């Protein structure tokens, strides 16, 4: 039943009065006084309390609603179509190679951010060199060219190709020569491309040249044994090593491979077997290798050749006329001793020389032959092809240019305008060439003189290959699309020579599939995964030197006499900058030179006593005038152990067109070099004058002796054999210690580290690895001068001086010593010790630094207010404060301040803001990643699953990280070693990093 009940609101509605009917049509029955309120009178009327409350309520509601808007959206581009191989947050590793070493490139979301040695690799693969670690930054270098250039203006590749091809045809027609100038090429495919190019243009020729060349050794081997090439030295087979100026641990040939070999005879495992090699170094300036030597004898450049002759004569018993070391009594004595030791170790001895002189290297060959080194410590049958530059060929090329015979020249990874000693000769010649092409990735000194710049890819954008020792082939594969409009040099050559294979990737693949892979039984895909193929080495035969050395001796003696005038200058490479090719790499510029600890500069290293004699003090500016008239003004650095009357200057500095970071850093020392008997010589005689004024060098360490403190503990090999505890302070019973805090046992993992001072050579690779891994700011020279470098890991280098049988380590005693030549060096990597009783933790007012349950000292950047109390209270001084906003401050424009360069940052590590403290986190991101991986695979962590960045980069294996609660872990075993001690253990801060005593294989006096 339908209800037709009606309710009415009022009598008006019931009666339906006309008034009601009228007003009921409106939305509001009574008209609202809007007009009234908004009129002048209304607005000026006093607001009643209720209105006020209404407005307030509305306002609050409106504001609340307005505030409910979502936070601003940052534009980020998601993967519309997700690439199959990329999972955001998960790194991909690609096998590639750098300087012939098989490496893994870590990429995150498609950008390469870190280089690691390929753990399965076989050449130098226990670690990586500092420049390998830093090379990833070169990819993001803002100073690189963004596209090709023709006659100093930007152009397209098409236009450039047309121009070059046209010019090439013209040169071809004119019958002039074509020259491809390159640093040593060890890539089979590149060589093949060039061979094809030469086939197309028969007037072309490849000239290989290295700024620091090894022509001397190559030629000497050719003369002595008919085997032109750099032999593969085997320091691991040598019981006695005598080196004359060869910095084989720092810069000489394949230093990381040599480091591994060298340390294998000196590390904990070797000492356990009661075996330690003996290393005697004769050199002018203190090199990284010299700092590691058991005996180091300073000799002048002019004495070096004579010393080698003296050694020859002492070993063979053949007296040589005119050979006398009478002016250097110590060296004379040392040579006799070295001869005795070498003879005792016949067959397991090795003599090397850093000289680039054919005659000197011939004598070295004769000595090694006499000692039976060939087939044992020197392998001539498996040559190293890292360096194959030929000095005289390059000199001939310059003459050709100057004679106007060259019509086209191509510079591949070569920069003679900077590197060649005679800039004028080179530039004059180059001006006579019509087609000048540079493949440089930037407009460098040489490229600026060329009419065509065809910028090459970075190696991380390239296809390619390398073969630096016989039998080993490594692949170079791109890990990112070319960032700029660049083109691989080989591709350019293929294009210009109209090769039948136009794509370099295809070319490389063909080359491998035709020539290399079948022998190795691998496919191309397998190769890309493993990164290299190795067919094994050839059997190493013994070689005998049987030539007359009379003429050679005379040459050496004469050359020595030529250099022995006034002050002798020695040019060297330092382990960070090397030949200067990567001078724009801020990581390398800020990596302290392992010996002098100087960053961002080169200098004139002078022995303190000699400086006193000529009246100069440290950081004085001096003008050095070489025999060829080249002068340079450099600050003086006091270098203990520098030979008296000599100056050492690093090459690789003074670049003018390398880029933002490297331009104008230091002075160019290459022009001091000279061409003698067809090889480049890096010694000269010079005069030195004080110019007045001084220039302070930015050193990361300004106090150089350890003041007799037991932070450094060392012993001799003989004492070690008698008592393995010797020097470690671990004798007798343990002290009873008392704690202020309750003991908290660490039950899960207990992360600790062991560092073997006897393995660490001090090269600094770990520092760069740490920088790259942990986004550590580069602060620049001015800030390093203010002692504000940010390195979490540093290598402390201390000198101690020996006089008689005494060792002097205190500044005061040292200042009274007469002879500062007899110096011993120790390198001590220093990083956060992750103390169990961390002094930093108790003093932080806001608990920004706290202890973890697995034995680590954490740093919560977000909580830090920056009182710096923790850094003050850290006895190891390893905490670093962000003085400025390094990632967003135009004054630090050499690395993370740039949007493009920022792409190199590790996304797993926070970039710190200004005002917070930071320090070694024990690569916490790696620990977490390792744990996570084990968890996903449902297994427990294995020892070695997690590796620290520093540990991974260390060729010497000096750093071991692991779990102390696992008695089988490598680190537990290492810390159980008799040589283990803890720095400042008497403070009872209970550091988590144990050091192993440095052992010196010295001869008892």
């Amino acid at each position: 039943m339908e209800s037709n009940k009606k309710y009415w609101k009022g009598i008006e509605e019931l009666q339906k009065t006309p008034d009601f009917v009228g007003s009921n049509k409106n939305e509001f029955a009574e008209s609202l006084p809007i007009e009234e309120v908004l009129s002048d009178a209304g607005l000026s009327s006093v607001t009643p309390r209720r209105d006020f409350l209404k407005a307030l309520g509305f306002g609050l509601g409106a504001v609340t609603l307005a505030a409910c808007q979502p936070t601003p959206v940052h534009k980020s581009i998601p993967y519309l179509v997700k690439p199959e191989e990329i999972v955001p947050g998960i790194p991909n590793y690609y096998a590639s190679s750098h300087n012939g070493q098989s490496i893994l490139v870590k990429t995150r979301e498609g950008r390469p951010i870190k280089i690691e040695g390929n753990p399965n690799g076989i050449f130098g693969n226990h670690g990586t060199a500092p420049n390998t670690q830093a090379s990833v930054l070169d990819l993001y270098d803002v100073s690189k060219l963004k596209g090709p250039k023709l006659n100093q203006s930007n152009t397209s590749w098409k236009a450039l190709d047309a121009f070059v091809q046209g010019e090439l045809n013209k040169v071809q027609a004119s019958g002039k020569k074509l020259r491809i100038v390159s640093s040593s090429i060890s890539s089979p495919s590149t060589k093949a491309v060039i061979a094809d190019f030469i086939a197309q243009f028969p007037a072309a020729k490849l000239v290989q040249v290295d700024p620091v060349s090894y022509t001397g050794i190559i030629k000497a081997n050719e003369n002595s044994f008919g085997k032109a090439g750099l032999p593969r030295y085997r320091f691991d087979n040598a019981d006695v090593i005598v080196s004359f100026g060869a910095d084989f641990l720092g810069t000489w040939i394949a230093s990381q491979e040599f480091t591994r070999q060298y340390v294998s005879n000196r590390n904990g495992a070797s000492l356990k077997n009661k075996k330690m090699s003996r290393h005697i170094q004769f050199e002018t300036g203190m090199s990284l290798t010299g700092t590691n030597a058991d005996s180091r004898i300073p000799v002048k450049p002019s004495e070096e050749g004579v010393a080698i002759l003296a050694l020859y004569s002492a070993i063979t018993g053949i007296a040589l006329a005119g050979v006398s070391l009478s002016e250097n009594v110590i060296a004379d004595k040392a040579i006799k001793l070295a001869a005795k030791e070498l003879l005792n170790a016949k067959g397991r001895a090795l003599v090397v020389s850093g000289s680039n002189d054919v005659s000197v290297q011939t004598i070295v060959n004769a000595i090694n032959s006499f000692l039976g080194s060939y087939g044992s410590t020197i392998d001539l049958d498996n040559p190293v092809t890292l360096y194959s530059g030929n000095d005289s060929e390059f000199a001939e090329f310059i003459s050709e240019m100057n004679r106007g015979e060259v019509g086209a020249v191509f510079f591949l990874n070569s920069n003679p305008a900077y590197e060649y000693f005679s800039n004028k000769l080179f530039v004059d010649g180059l001006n006579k060439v019509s087609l000048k092409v540079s493949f440089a990735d930037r407009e460098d000194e040489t490229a600026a003189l060329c009419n065509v710049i065809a910028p090459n890819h970075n190696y991380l954008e390239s296809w390619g290959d390398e073969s630096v020792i016989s039998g080993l082939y490594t692949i170079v594969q791109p890990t990112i699309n070319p960032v700029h409009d660049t083109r691989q040099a080989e591709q350019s050559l293929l294009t210009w020579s109209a090769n039948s294979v136009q794509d370099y990737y295809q070319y490389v693949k063909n080359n491998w599939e035709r020539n290399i892979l079948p022998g190795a039984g691998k496919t191309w895909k397998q190769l890309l995964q493993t990164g290299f193929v190795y067919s094994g080495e050839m059997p190493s035969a013994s070689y005998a030197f049987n030539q007359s050395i009379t003429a050679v001796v005379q040459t050496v003696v004469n050359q020595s006499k030529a250099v022995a005038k006034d002050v002798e200058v020695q040019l060297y490479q330092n382990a960070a900058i090397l030949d200067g090719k990567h001078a724009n790499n801020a990581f390398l510029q800020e990596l302290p030179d392992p010996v002098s600890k100087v960053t961002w500069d080169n200098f004139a290293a002078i022995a303190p006593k000699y400086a006193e004699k000529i009246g100069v003090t440290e950081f004085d500016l001096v003008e050095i005038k070489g025999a060829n008239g080249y002068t340079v003004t450099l600050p003086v650095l006091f270098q203990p152990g520098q030979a008296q009357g000599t100056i050492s200057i690093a090459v690789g500095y003074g670049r003018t067109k390398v880029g933002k970071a490297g331009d104008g850093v230091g002075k160019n020392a290459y022009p001091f070099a000279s061409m003698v008997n067809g090889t480049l010589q890096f010694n000269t005689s010079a005069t030195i004058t004080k110019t007045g004024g001084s220039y302070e060098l930015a050193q990361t360490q300004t106090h150089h002796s350890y003041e007799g403190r037991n932070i450094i503990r060392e012993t001799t090999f003989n004492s070690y054999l008698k008592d393995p505890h010797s020097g470690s302070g671990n004798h007798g019973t343990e002290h009873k210690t008392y704690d202020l805090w309750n003991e908290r046992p660490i039950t899960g993992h207990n992360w600790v580290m062991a560092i073997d001072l006897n393995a660490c050579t001090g090269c600094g690779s770990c520092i760069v690895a740490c920088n790259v891994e942990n986004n550590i700011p580069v602060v620049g020279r001015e800030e390093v001068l203010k002692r504000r470098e940010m390195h979490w890991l540093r290598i402390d280098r201390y000198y101690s001086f020996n006089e008689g049988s005494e060792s002097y380590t205190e500044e005061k005693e040292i200042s009274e010593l007469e002879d500062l030549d007899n110096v011993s060096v120790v390198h001590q990597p220093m990083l956060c010790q992750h103390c169990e009783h961390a002094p930093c933790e108790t003093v932080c007012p806001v608990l920004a630094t706290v202890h973890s349950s697995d034995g680590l000292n954490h740093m919560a950047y977000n909580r830090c207010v920056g009182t710096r109390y923790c850094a003050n209270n850290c006895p190891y001084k390893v905490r670093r404060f962000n003085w400025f906003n390094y990632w967003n401050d135009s004054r630090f424009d050499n690395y993370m301040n740039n949007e493009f360069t920022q792409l190199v940052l590790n996304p797993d590590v926070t970039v710190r803001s200004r005002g917070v403290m930071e320090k070694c986190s024990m690569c916490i991101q790696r620990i977490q990643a390792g744990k996570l991986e084990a968890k996903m695979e449902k297994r427990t962590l294995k020892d070695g699953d997690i590796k620290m960045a520093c540990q991974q980069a260390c060729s010497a294996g000096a750093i071991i990280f692991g779990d102390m609660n696992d008695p089988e872990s490598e680190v537990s075993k290492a810390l159980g070693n008799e040589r283990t001690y803890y720095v400042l253990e008497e403070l009872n801060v209970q550091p988590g990093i144990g050091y192993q005593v440095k052992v010196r294989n010295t001869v008892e006096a």
Partner: protein
Amino acid sequence: MSSHHESILREPLITGENITYTKITNDILVPVENKANKAWWIGFTISALGALLWVVAVGYTFWTGIGAWGLNKTVGWAWDITGFVWWVGIGHAGTLISAILLLFRQNWRNSINRSAEAMTIFAVICAATYVVSHMGRPWLAYWPLPLPNQFGSLWVNFNSPLVWDVFAISTYFSVSLVFWYTGLLPDIATVRDRATGLRRRIYSIMSFGWNGSVKTWQRFEAVSLILAGVSTPLVLSVHTIVSMDFATSLVPGWHTTIFPPYFVAGAIFSGFAMVQTLLLVTRKVMNFENYITMFHIESMNKIIILTGSIVGVAYLTELFIAWYSGVEYEQYAFLNRVSGPYWWAYWSMMTCNVISPQLFWLKKVRTSIAASWILSIVVNIGMWFERFVIIVTSLHRDYLPSSWVMFYPSIIDVCVFIGSIGLFFTMFLLFLRVLPAIAMAEVKLLLKSSSDQSKQKLIRDKKVDPEQAEAYLQSLEKYDSVIPKPEYAKI
């Protein structure tokens, strides 16, 4: 406090003739009730420029980062904490004068306590500015406070001496402020009663309705005593805790148990020196010679010599203990202080703090205004160097020689320090203009008993033993400055 009979042999605390309660009020309120004189304007202009420099220097630091200062990886504190400790130390004299001397009924404190307390407050403000400005992220300066927060269970670290410091300094500041203001109430009421218009209204609010009734006075006395009791431990505790910033660390040269007493003595030492520096000028410029007499100056000099000697003994003890401990790091730290690259700072400290105050053993020096003023400045310099020596020379060469560095201040460091002095004087000069620099009410208490005129009257009325009267008059002539001497005019 109370007006009672006093031995004629005691030196008068108020000099001059025809001193009445009104005259005291009139004399003391001259700077408050009149336009500032030229000397004040000159002083204020210079100080205000200094304060401006402080604003600029600290602003620049906030803008760019602590890197604007000369600090480095090894020396994390230098001029900042030196300045902080220096200012906190200076503050201590005010509290000592107002609290401890009150409890010990040392009536001579009545004429200097007001300015000394004001100095305390301004010095603590200066110190606090350093606490905030030395932080890497000063906008988070409230984090060391144990505030309830939304960061989860995040709390402050009660083990950290810096947290103790936060408590010590904030307690110190608040108690000092309350004590100072309570003492000001009767005087503000006096100013109110004499003022008209807006000034009257402001001072009326500031006087908290003081009506001068017996009950009010009785409560005033009681509160003063209680606050004195509260403040007394603070004199000892604040600088003890400041010293623990260093003493509880393990930096050689910081890690010493002698620090608390040594710091407290040093604080009082520097505080009295600063009181001298300020009051010697104030009494001259403001014509307060009758109320701040040579007796006051001499008394303070005596405290300076006492505390200076304590500090000196502490310095020597430190050296001895370093040698005796056999700890090589400790030994080196002190050898380095004495003969290292900052030897000049150590010897400046020794000269200024230990040797120069010994001159006060000579009555002639101790009663010479010029000498007192110069030596008070010397002591202030010495005490700055003391903190610099402790902080910088200990830090710059600690355990691992590889990290040994030198510290060089930047221009901003210098500007912040000079600026903080400007800030201090700006506040002090403003104080002189708006509040009575001498506690009028408390001085008035002494008029009937301890003033020269009342003592003279007793002698004239032959109410005292003539022998004693003779001794009193002689003492005035022999040593003191009751009768104005021409050399007064020199300052």
